[in-house]
């Protein structure tokens, strides 16, 4: 199963490294990354494969949310199919 990780916050050194390290710790594989800086805000979107994740998806999402709070960022992990449902006919 695929999920989408979005990271939004003030740009600084090491955001991608920290998020990827955290994901790797749970055996989550990164499939695609795109990032941009919009109005001074770092915005990153990753598509990840969570099928090997050592944590159930809901807990993984909570862990990433927690990590985001520690780093003063918004980190969200959501199932990919919600976006397909909402934006594709």
């Amino acid at each position, binding site marked *: 199963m695929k999920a989408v990780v979005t990271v939004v916050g003030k740009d600084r050194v090491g955001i991608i490294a920290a998020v990827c390290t955290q994901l790797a710790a749970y055996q989550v594989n990164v499939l695609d990354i795109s990032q941009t800086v919009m109005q001074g805000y770092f915005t990153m*979107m990753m598509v990840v494969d969570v099928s090997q994740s050592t944590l159930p998806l809901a807990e993984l999402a909570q862990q990433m949310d927690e990590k985001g709070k520690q780093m003063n960022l918004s980190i969200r992990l959501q199932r990919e199919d919600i976006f397909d449902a909402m934006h594709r006919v």
Partner: protein
Amino acid sequence: MLNINDILSTQDMIDKRHLDIRTITMGISLLDCGHEDVKTCARKIYDKITRRAENLVKVGQQIEWEFGIPIVNKRISVTPISIVGNTCRTDSYVPLAIAMDAAAKQCGVNFIGGFSALVQKGCTQGDWILMDSIPEAMKATERVCASVNVGSTKAGINMDAVAKMGQIIKKTAQLTADNDGLGCAKLVVFANAVEDNPFMAGAFHGVGEPETVLNVGVSGPGVVYHALQGVKGQPFDVVAETIKKTAFRITRMGQIVGVEASKRLGVPFGIVDLSLAPTPAVGDSVARILEEMGLEVCGTHGTTAALALLNDAVKKGGVMASNHVGGLSGAFIPVSEDEGMIAAAEAGVLQLDKLEAMTCVCSVGLDMIAVPGDTSAETISAIIADEAAIGMVNSKTTAVRIIPAPGKVVGDRVEMGGLLGSAPVMPVHGQSSAEFIARGGRIPAPLQSLKN
């Protein structure tokens, strides 16, 4: 391929526009819980609800995290208790309401609906007992919601039940006077009630429904409001199209969440209710959508037309997004639960008569309206009769949820708290309808052809 703007727009809707799943409601049949001893019946009801809905809240929370979408309420609806209770040798169904309340608390749901009776054509012994039990049940329980269907397009209006419900509403207000008549906020009088409505206070699990079912109610007035801000001054064709597109997205979200929840709970998926359900939070108001269309204040001339467009476009957009649409599906206009409605009522612009006109084109009816505490039972019955007539003739669901707040007069405010919000006390006509209500009997079902 996913587009970063699509992803960010979804998150923006959730973070800033109050997009959420308003409720996942599990319907549970209690048809096998009857027993001549009311205590045994109550125990069977408690056992069945707690067994079937054991994982409802847990699964709801898991899905919230996985999809990153808030599911604000997890609720339960059950078979109308008048049918189940009819098997008991008793003169009060209050013990059954208490069992429902205890089961709701055990399952962790905030409301349970189905303390209900369907009396559009006449009342069984059980129906009378249920109606008589409502005031005490609303006082004795915290989470139980009651509803009574007094009319339908096929059956006409049961005016004996209408007269009765005026008295019941008054009595419920008196028994819960300490909380401004809060009991009445959990009591709905319907015409053309639907069997698969996931929204409270009017949810019940109809007898045509399966053993258990999962229905989903979506929301998102804030998202529609924001979308319309982007098309200021443009013709109504554009307005309707914009609402449809937004409703489509909202409904798709409800569909995916509902299917997932039903799969995990092992319960068949019922319907998505395509509703715009406001909350008292700023930015989550249906009234503000109508104002965004160009009305200075909700309730002024043009409001009914604006609401008609909104209601229809929400349905058109939503229907294609879900494989089963049902429930009440449309825009709700509960006064106390909508920040813009409260403001319009307090400004004196939004009046009861205009609200009644609006209910001809909205999803339900006169909802969460506070009236003076000295409003007579007959006047409340007459308000119910008017509303039921609109539903009956137009083949739509209508309802009355009205709070004759004890000791309050026009200009006072009634505080319900939480999602129920607060309502300014609105004036009613002072002239009597007592003789009209005293007639009793039935208003015949209307003609359904020769519509020119």
